[in-house]
């Protein structure tokens, strides 16, 4: 682990870029905290700057730092914390749905640009800088000053008894140890495969563990080795030893702000403001901020405020920062501030207003998407029932949608619809189509053949047969499809939190990021209850429908 503080640099590739995009040069040159006239323009003149983060603690903190710094310089800021995964954030940035979020150079190199791996921090930064700009007009600001790279950690007792200091040591003793790694680490070429290749590491056993669980698993002795990130606050909490990457195989993960084309064009001075953070955050400071968030439960807004104060960047910050954004979706406010020792029930009671609002949003997402799916798919099923050959194709196509993982579907949505409630609804509608269409089609096609044949034989017209016989006979099967879609939608709607649409997924996503079980349950329990209630209500509708025909 080397904490690199890379200030603004000017390598050959940088010069090439400057020659290519002259106005970017202005920003880079202006990186020296030079106040400009535009800082003092009334904030209302400019549109709000949308600052997003990924759904984990450090990203929350960094985004809040960006936001407060911009606010200190008179900008209005809209916060979109906990927005999806890398693909979601980057697509949102490229699509102009957000203006800025914290990213890591190694991620940019491997996951975004799919470039060959490099281990030199400076070369990697230059590669992502030119790659993102030329491909996506997205600008990487000079790194913040710390790296959040892979850290392989063991308990102190394990390290002492086996004399583990480096990854070479681990390779020597690894055959007797059990590892719990994230699926991401196991699969990524720069993760476990790289370890195995470079160090000849063979562990006794490797299990995939969730990000939020692995520290507890390590502390409890369920596993002996985990992968973490070098700035994880929990490394300090559990007194863990990070083994040195003495062969330097992990790619550098320097944190930096990435800025979309729209902000570069609309408010270049805002970018100058953001570069005030470049090179000033070292790894120790970041780890401490993460610890205060993850272990103490200090609100993100407070952490960012304190950090800006101590960095001397808080000249204009109001004494008490408001953490929650105007639309109330920020998880940065009161949620973590409640006493971590209070029980789940007390937490639910304390958060009831927020949770009720989230539940209402969740229910709205589900009902609107379900309504649209019903209104479109029932007529579609009626049409397809008369054209079985086309039905196969249509059902196949709609069914294929169902197989797209939720997070991937949301990623596809961003370039088309941006972020927020709109794309979440579109995704939820797409997920509701198949159960409704399939059941309606099958129900209509396979309605009691004897009754249908007789209805035709006594002289009902095709449309009368469809509407008066097939459709009512199919009603129970159709309702079953609608109930399936409804329960699925309640579950899927938790993903809406990844693209800033709110709902009960919000505390789940944030709770997962902060390893806060109570917060996860505060979203999961109402979501489960909602699924039961929605299904129960639809069961009542079904009973009335069947009774009335």
């Amino acid at each position, binding site marked *: 682990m080397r904490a690199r503080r890379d200030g603004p640099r000017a390598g050959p590739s940088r010069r090439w870029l400057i020659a290519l995009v002259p106005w970017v040069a202005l920003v880079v040159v202006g990186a020296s905290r030079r106040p400009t006239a535009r800082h003092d323009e009334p904030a209302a003149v400019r549109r709000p700057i949308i600052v997003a983060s990924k759904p984990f603690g450090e990203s929350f903190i960094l985004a809040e730092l960006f936001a407060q710094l911009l606010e200190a310089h008179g900008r209005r800021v809209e916060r979109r914390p906990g927005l999806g995964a890398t693909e979601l954030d980057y697509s949102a940035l490229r699509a102009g749905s957000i203006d800025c979020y914290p990213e890591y150079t190694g991620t940019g190199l491997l996951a975004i640009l799919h470039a060959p791996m490099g281990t030199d921090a400076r070369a990697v930064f230059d590669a992502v800088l030119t790659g993102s700009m030329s491909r996506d007009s997205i600008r990487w600001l000079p790194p913040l000053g710390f790296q959040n790279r892979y850290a392989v950690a063991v308990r102190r007792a394990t390290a002492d008894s086996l004399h583990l200091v480096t990854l070479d040591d681990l390779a020597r003793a690894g055959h007797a140890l059990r590892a719990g790694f994230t699926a991401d680490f196991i699969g990524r070429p720069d993760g476990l495969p790289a370890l195995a290749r470079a160090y000849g590491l063979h562990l006794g056993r490797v299990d995939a563990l969730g990000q939020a669980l692995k520290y507890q698993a390590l502390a409890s002795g369920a596993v002996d080795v985990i992968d973490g990130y070098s700035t994880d606050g929990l490394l300090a909490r559990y007194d863990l030893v990070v083994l040195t990457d003495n062969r330097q195989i992990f790619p550098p993960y320097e944190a930096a702000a990435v800025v979309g084309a729209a902000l570069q064009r609309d408010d270049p001075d805002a970018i100058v403001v953001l570069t005030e953070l470049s090179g000033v955050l070292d790894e120790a400071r970041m780890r401490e901020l993460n610890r205060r968030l993850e272990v103490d439960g200090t609100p993100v807004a407070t952490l960012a405020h304190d950090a800006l104060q101590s960095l001397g960047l808080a000249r204009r910050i109001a004494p008490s920062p408001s953490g929650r954004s105007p639309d109330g979706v920020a998880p940065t406010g009161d949620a973590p501030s409640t006493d971590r020792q209070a029980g789940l029930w007390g937490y639910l009671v304390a958060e009831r207003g927020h949770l009720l609002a989230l539940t209402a949003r969740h229910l709205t997402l589900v009902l609107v998407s379900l309504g649209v799916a019903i209104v479109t798919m029932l007529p579609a099923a009626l049409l397809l029932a008369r054209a079985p050959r086309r039905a196969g194709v249509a059902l196949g196509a709609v069914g294929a949608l169902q197989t797209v993982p939720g997070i991937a579907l949301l990623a596809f949505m961003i370039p088309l619809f941006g972020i927020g409630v709109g794309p979440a609804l579109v995704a939820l509608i797409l997920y509701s189509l198949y159960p409704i269409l399939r059941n309606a089609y099958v129900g209509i096609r396979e309605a*009691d053949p*004897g009754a249908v044949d007789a209805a035709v*034989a*006594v*002289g009902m*017209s095709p449309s*009368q047969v469809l509407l008066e016989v097939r459709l009512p006979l199919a009603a129970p099967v159709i309702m079953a499809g609608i109930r399936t879609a409804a329960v699925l939608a309640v579950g899927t709607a938790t993903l809406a939190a990844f693209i800033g649409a709110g709902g009960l997924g919000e505390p789940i996503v944030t709770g997962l990021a902060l390893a806060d079980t109570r917060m996860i349950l505060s979203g999961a329990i109402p979501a489960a209850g909602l699924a039961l209630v929605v299904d129960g209500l639809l069961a009542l509708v079904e009973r009335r429908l069947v009774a009335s025909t």
Partner: protein
Amino acid sequence: MTGEATPSATVAATSATAGAGARAVALAATEVSKSYGPIVALDRVSIDVAAGDCLALIGESGSGKTTLLRCLNRMVDPDRGTVTVDAQSTRDVDPVRLRRHIGYVPQDGGLLPHWSVRRNVALVPRLLGDPDPAARAADALRLVGFEPDEVGGRRPRTLSGGQRQRVALARALAARPGVVLLDEPFGALDAITRAELQDGFRRLRAELGMTVVLVTHDIREACALADHVAVMQHGRVHQVGTPRALRDEPATPYVARLMAGA
């Protein structure tokens, strides 16, 4: 069984019904053929039925009797040949309109399970634009021996098999069609119920005088209910005639064997 039927059987059929008298022909199928892929369901079949007459189509499964019946109300359109109802080719009539004027009773009754008995029976009068379908339904239910108020509000599945077939018959008769088609209407019933319904059916025919085509695989039922019987096998008609004619002068050994069981 071998293919003993010959084209002469159809000649015999025509002459047999021609001998039935001067009554007008209500239904006729002429040289009707129908194939489903390689399977020949009907092979140049000709029959005709005089007005007010009852013709039974008898044969084993796959003999083509149900296909022939369904050609009469255009539930099946033949590949070749013509079907006439009241001297009009059914090809010239919209099938939906045609079916509304022809009563139909399938083996399982074909009642719509989500509708009350009354609504089921009132269906055809309603389709025909009758001003008071409920009254037609009540009349028809009385015809088959029901008290309309007792069964009218019930769902078909709450009735016994025999009751359901009577309701189906009531539905077929509610609009008083000139022609009624029955596809093994009593086939799924126990012997006692079947006998009751057969009696009731005979009385209705005497009362209403409609033309009937009845599909059955039971030669005793055919002889008991029908004026004429058409014996079918492998998509052809062996012989058409009165039960007595079939017994006394069977045209083929197959007919003779069949009548021995009557």
